[in-house]
């Protein structure tokens, strides 16, 4: 009996593991968006935007109780963009800028900005990094900490970056790297949290994360400005990217009201400025 049970379990695990992973991110969205009613705003997409979107929705409901309902799913920026293009959700959340390959007819509404920090192990306090130093390090031109001015670590540099599909990767490439290519040898992690953990446990590592995840790490100053919420808000810190709420065509009805509330209302700005950079 045990025999059969164990064998059966192994077989099922082996057969189901792959498709379960592949479809997981979309299931919630489809179920949520099956019957779109006028008063329900459904959202999916970026995992970086999701915490902000949840807080905003909560505050919005406090101000206008009972007018709308929110359903929020995640899945990554590209999932959000694809979902909204196909009409599966009202709003797709994206932490990356519009791409030429995006479906036509989408409207990217900017809602906030977010800082990306270059981070090292707390035991390795690098000083100020210029853009060219960052490019040299991440492109593999400089491969030893002793060649980095101000670094207290020595030995080879371990690069920790994000996978090609990540919105943070996209933003880092644009903001910090320009046309320089990230070295082939860099370890590509699937989430901000994994980068954070890899850098925390390796004295020779350097990576980049959303400001939220820089806690417990040494966030390097970039072009003379510290990577802090205050400097990001003042506009002095240059490594900031946009958060978008994507709609099909110009937003209408409750979605329009919600997005313009985020963009112009003082209460929304207060919510955003807890951990992100409000517009304007």
């Amino acid at each position: 009996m045990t025999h059969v049970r164990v064998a059966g379990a192994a077989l099922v695990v082996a057969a189901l593991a792959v498709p379960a992973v592949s479809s997981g991110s979309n299931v919630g969205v489809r179920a949520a968006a099956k019957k779109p009613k006028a008063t329900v705003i459904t959202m999916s997409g970026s995992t970086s935007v999701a915490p902000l979107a949840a807080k905003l929705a909560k505050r919005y409901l406090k101000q206008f109780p009972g007018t709308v309902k929110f359903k929020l799913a995640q899945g990554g920026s590209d999932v959000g963009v694809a979902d909204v293009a196909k009409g599966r959700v009202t709003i797709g959340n994206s932490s990356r800028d519009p791409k030429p390959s995006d479906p036509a007819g989408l409207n990217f509404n900017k809602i906030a900005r977010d800082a990306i920090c270059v981070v090292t192990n707390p035991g390795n306090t690098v000083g100020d990094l210029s853009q060219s130093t960052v490019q040299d390090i991440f492109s593999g031109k400089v491969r030893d900490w002793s060649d980095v001015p101000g670094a207290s670590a020595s030995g080879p540099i371990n690069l920790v970056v994000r996978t090609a599909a990540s919105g943070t990767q996209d933003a880092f490439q644009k903001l910090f790297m320009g046309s320089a290519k990230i070295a082939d040898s860099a370890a590509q992690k699937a989430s901000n949290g994994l980068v954070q953990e890899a850098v925390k446990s390796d004295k020779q590592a350097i990576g980049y994360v959303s400001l939220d995840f820089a806690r417990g790490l040494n966030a390097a100053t970039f072009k003379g400005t510290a990577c802090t919420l205050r400097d990001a808000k003042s506009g002095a810190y240059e490594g900031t990217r946009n958060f978008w709420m994507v709609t099909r065509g110009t937003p209408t009805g409750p979605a329009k009201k919600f997005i313009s509330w985020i963009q112009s209302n003082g209460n929304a700005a207060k919510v955003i400025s807890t951990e992100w950079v409000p517009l304007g």
Partner: protein
Amino acid sequence: MRRLVRSTMSDKRAERMLGALASVVLLVIVLMVVSVVSKAWPSFAHNGLGWFGSGPNVDHQLADIFNSPADSSHYVYKLSAWPLLYGTALITGGALVIGLVFALLAAIFIVEFAPRPLRRVLEPVVRLLAAVPSVIYGLIGVLVLVPFVGNQLISTHRKESVIYVVQLSGNSLLVAVAILTVMITPIMVALIVVALRAVPVGWREGSAALGVNRWRTVWTISVRAVRPAIIAAAVLATARALGEAIMLSMVSGSVGFAPNPLDGLTFVFEPTRPLAAAIVEGAEGFSVKPYGQTLYAFGAILLLSSLCLSLGAHYAKRPLRRFGLTP
């Protein structure tokens, strides 16, 4: 008489119900394979046999596929997935070989040598280990093993020796194989224990009566008799190992690199990326059609190999039934 007829009727009804359920399961599996393979097809069709070969950097190719233009006639599909296939084979094979040795010895100990109280504890523990979710193993790997290997086992000199090719940070073949071994060994132990128990006492007593010691008896009679079951256990454990994604994505290094055995000891410290981990890590890009199809192609490879392995295990166990050894 009436009662009898009625009972056979309900028997038939139950039989039909169960048959229908079983067919549904079969149908689901068939549909799954068909849908995965059909979604994966463009990736294979555009590359032919080159898909399985080695070529330019696989990470660049995946990035190019991800950045395909929106126009479907200009989709990029160029891919040589060898480093991923090789990484999968290395990790799975390594874990299987090491795990099988441990599992066989552990099973022999549990069945033949362990005192009764110890056995009562060991068996549930083994079953429990087999059920620990893989993300737990992944966490242990990321938080404990990877930093330990990276900071203690790999010398700066070793890191510098390969710095222009690959970085050694502790995310390595070694850690991946070690954790995967721990994950699949309990399954094999459980299966082999059951098989060893089914060996008739008379066979062993016969051997003991000839003056053969206990260890030799186990090795030459029991283990030899259950060889097919051992193969079946190994095959099922391999299927489990192939599908492992989360844990491997966390510890294996996340870079499409093919570790080189010619590097000597450095080889085991080199990172790699198996297929299942590549799917998890790429999940954010599913909406980019050619990229999604590429991930489906990885899935198709894993799915088909798992199915083949399951069938293989079924046939490997056949001789057991002939001896009347099936528990």
